[in-house]
């Protein structure tokens, strides 16, 4: 299913090509891997924002945008994300396949632009252009403050933040508000040089291009300059007995958001991990799941409720939007489902549905270039490569006993509840 070729083309530089002819576009993702640490998280977040403001040859983002538009709307975006306790800087190029348009140099021209943004950056004096840095600092600030705009996501993230308050994983991928003022064109440029020289880099390409062809494009157009490559630690994996951490937060909202954080105590490299995937699927992985049927369909407590694994940190999160005065009832019903699974109250029907949902999702990966690239890179980051077919086989061979074994390891850690101000004093 995944026609993947991987090759180390330089020290710390890996190329992975997925050859697939059915898409209209070619996707080229360049990933820089960094440790998720307070010292650099904010710098890493700001960097792609500044790099996209201008290059030596296209000095404004307007010039860059015009050029990309003319290249049949090719998109070139830089952003950050986190995978476990690693921060990933990603530059993604998406461009129309050559057989659909009349511009044979399209890909080369796009790669040249990618090279300019990454390696031919606009420098004034001893740093990045201060005007750009100052503007992007403001944008980053509003991005961090803007977290609370999406309440569903906010409650989910805040639960993780509370749960992992003593671990690196609590860091928000866009950085720390208080650290923004200290950044300037000069120290950001120093940081940039460090990133370029020391980060492990992976390039994942999905499209009609052959591996050899891609390699040529890349070695001809991208002027990598890696020196000493850093080693990045595996995720810390905390499992300790402690009282359940309960956090309530108030905001002017209509619907309460309940997020429950669990430690699964099971690494993604563990042979039992596929059983954990099946566990979460049966519990809250869609309309076939226990939570959907009991909390939503039977009791009409919510519109949405789901469980989701945080693979690299071995966490499971449950999220739902409910009436504030129904929080206790919801928690009780959720707990009943968790207990049922521990007690082995899982039907064959639930096993089949839970597995099928996972398998379909894995099979469907192959129909999205972005999903294939992400799957591939996730495997690389975890340093534990399972191809999709193998993973499907492992899921298929999970037994009820395995799921029960997993269920017994899962521990509630943090209960986070976002509720409205109006509820104060008990009147709604």
């Amino acid at each position, binding site marked *: 299913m995944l026609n993947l070729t991987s090759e180390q083309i330089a020290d710390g530089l890996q190329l992975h090509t997925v050859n697939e002819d059915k898409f*209209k576009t070619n996707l080229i993702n360049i990933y820089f891997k960094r440790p998720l640490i307070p010292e650099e998280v904010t710098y890493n977040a700001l960097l792609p924002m500044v790099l996209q403001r201008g290059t030596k040859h296209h000095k404004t983002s307007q010039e860059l945008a015009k050029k990309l*538009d003319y*290249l049949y709307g090719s998109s070139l975006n830089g952003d950050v994300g986190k995978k476990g306790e690693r921060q990933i800087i990603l530059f993604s190029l998406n*461009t*129309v396949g050559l057989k659909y348009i009349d511009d044979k140099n399209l890909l080369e021209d796009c790669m040249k632009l990618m090279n300019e943004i990454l390696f031919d950056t606009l420098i004034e004096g001893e740093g990045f252009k201060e005007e750009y840095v100052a503007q992007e600092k403001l944008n980053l600030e509003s991005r961090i403050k*803007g977290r609370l705009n999406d309440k569903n996501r906010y409650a989910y993230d805040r639960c993780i933040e509370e749960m992992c308050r003593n671990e690196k994983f609590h860091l928000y991928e866009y950085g720390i508000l208080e650290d923004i003022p200290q950044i300037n064109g000069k120290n950001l440029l120093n940081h940039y040089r460090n990133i370029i020289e020391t980060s492990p880099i992976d390039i994942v390409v999905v499209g009609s291009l052959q591996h050899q062809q891609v390699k040529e494009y890349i070695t001809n157009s991208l002027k990598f300059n890696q020196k000493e490559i850093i080693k990045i630690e595996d995720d810390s994996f905390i499992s300790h007995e402690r009282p359940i951490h309960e956090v309530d937060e108030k905001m*002017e909202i209509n*619907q309460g958001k309940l997020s429950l954080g669990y430690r699964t105590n099971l690494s993604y490299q563990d042979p039992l991990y596929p059983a954990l995937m099946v566990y979460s699927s049966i519990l809250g992985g869609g309309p076939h799941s226990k939570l959907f049927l009991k909390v939503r369909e039977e009791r009409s407590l919510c519109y949405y409720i789901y469980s989701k694994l945080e693979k690299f940190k071995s966490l499971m999160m449950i999220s739902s939007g409910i009436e504030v005065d129904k929080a206790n009832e919801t928690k009780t019903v959720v707990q009943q489902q968790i207990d049922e699974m521990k007690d082995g109250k899982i039907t064959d029907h639930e096993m089949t549905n839970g597995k099928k949902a996972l398998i379909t999702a894995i099979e*469907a990966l192959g129909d999205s270039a972005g999903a294939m690239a992400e799957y591939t890179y996730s495997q690389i980051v975890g340093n534990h490569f399972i191809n999709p077919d193998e993973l499907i086989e492992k899921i298929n061979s999970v037994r009820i006993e395995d799921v029960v074994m997993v269920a017994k390891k899962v521990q509630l850690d943090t209960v986070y509840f976002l509720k409205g101000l109006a509820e104060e004093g008990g009147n709604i």
Partner: protein
Amino acid sequence: MTYSEIKGDVVKESIFTKKLSNGLEVFFMPKEGYTKQYAIFATKFGSNDLKFKKLHDKDIAEVPEGIAHFLEHKLFEEPEGNAFDRFAPLGANVNAYTNFNITAYYFTSTDYFYENLKNLIEFVQAPYFTDENVEKEKGIITQEIKMYQDNPQWRVFFNFLKGMYHNHPVRIDIAGTVESINKTTKEDLYTCFNTFYDPSNMILLVAGDLIKEEVFNKVEELFQKQDIKEPFSIIRYYPDEPIHVNKEIIEEKLSVSMPMFYLGYKKIPKNSEERHINLLKEEATVRILLDMVFDKGTDLYQKLYNEGLIDRSFQVDYVCEPDYGHSIISGDSKDPKMVKKIIDEWLVILKNRGLDEADFARVQRKQIGENISYYNSMEYIGNSFIGYRFKNLNFLEYIDMLKSVSFEDVEEELKNHFNEERQVLSIISPVN
């Protein structure tokens, strides 16, 4: 078996189509090499349809707001369990959505396609509404409405529509209100079902790496078992809508970190017959215009961005329906009123100075490229295709339409589109 072929030459895609004897239009888009199969079964019935009758009915039906969406929820209910139970053991994902004009039910599968298809066609045509199960759904939908009430993007959008329209039902929230939901009865649901869920008011579209003959044969087989009713026309009643906007500026406070805005212009409804024929061309023209004025490559965008008035959330859109239409310029800003002021001033200058032909070529190429890339997703194409088809338009022609728009067309649109009398600004600002 006779079917016709609709071609998209640039993207090298085809869609095959046939009309069944019960009036249902069936479409099939082959997607060679794709693992997923996709089917969408949709009715031309959305939140805007609140007053209607069958051609030969005596009385006009008036139903509570949000009923199309309520009905969508309830069709999943079956005498034993719900429709999800049919699909889950086959590994298929089934879901549905309701918008202003359409309700659509769809699944994606990687196996057992025809069993899933049978399930889809069956459950969508088998209503099972009881007083009890209608009551139960009210709690779930209330939570859905409350979720949207906390969603500032949704609120800024619906406030915008309320500012734009005096009477047209597009100003009403798709899910209705907690009040209208609580008024809804099973009889209302049956009235809507019996009017709008007739195959002659529906479309079925299938996509995937499947064999064309087999798709059409199976579909026909599935419908053959059903009694054929006399197809009927539906008359929909919409109130008269003035040309000018209802309210020029609407502001609300919510828990957000920075103000959000929607700015837009109401489209003048031309002679509706004439406008309908040109709807696709109109959409392509306005979309090119909007990018030529507002996209990242423009001076206006750069001015707003460099002054810290907009960020990368800034974007444009155009809604183009036979009975209404509006452009949308939206984003986050510390000062939406200043954004509006700068845009207004800029447009005066631009109307005098005229547009730039190099910009026209750039935007045309960009939009052609973007439209080609949409064909990566069969769900996206399937959705778009049925949306246009219900308006008697062919989505596969859109790229050709983009190519056929001339610079002069866009200049003409520039003069007409941006009229301050038809302009609305909706703002959500922080509570504190």
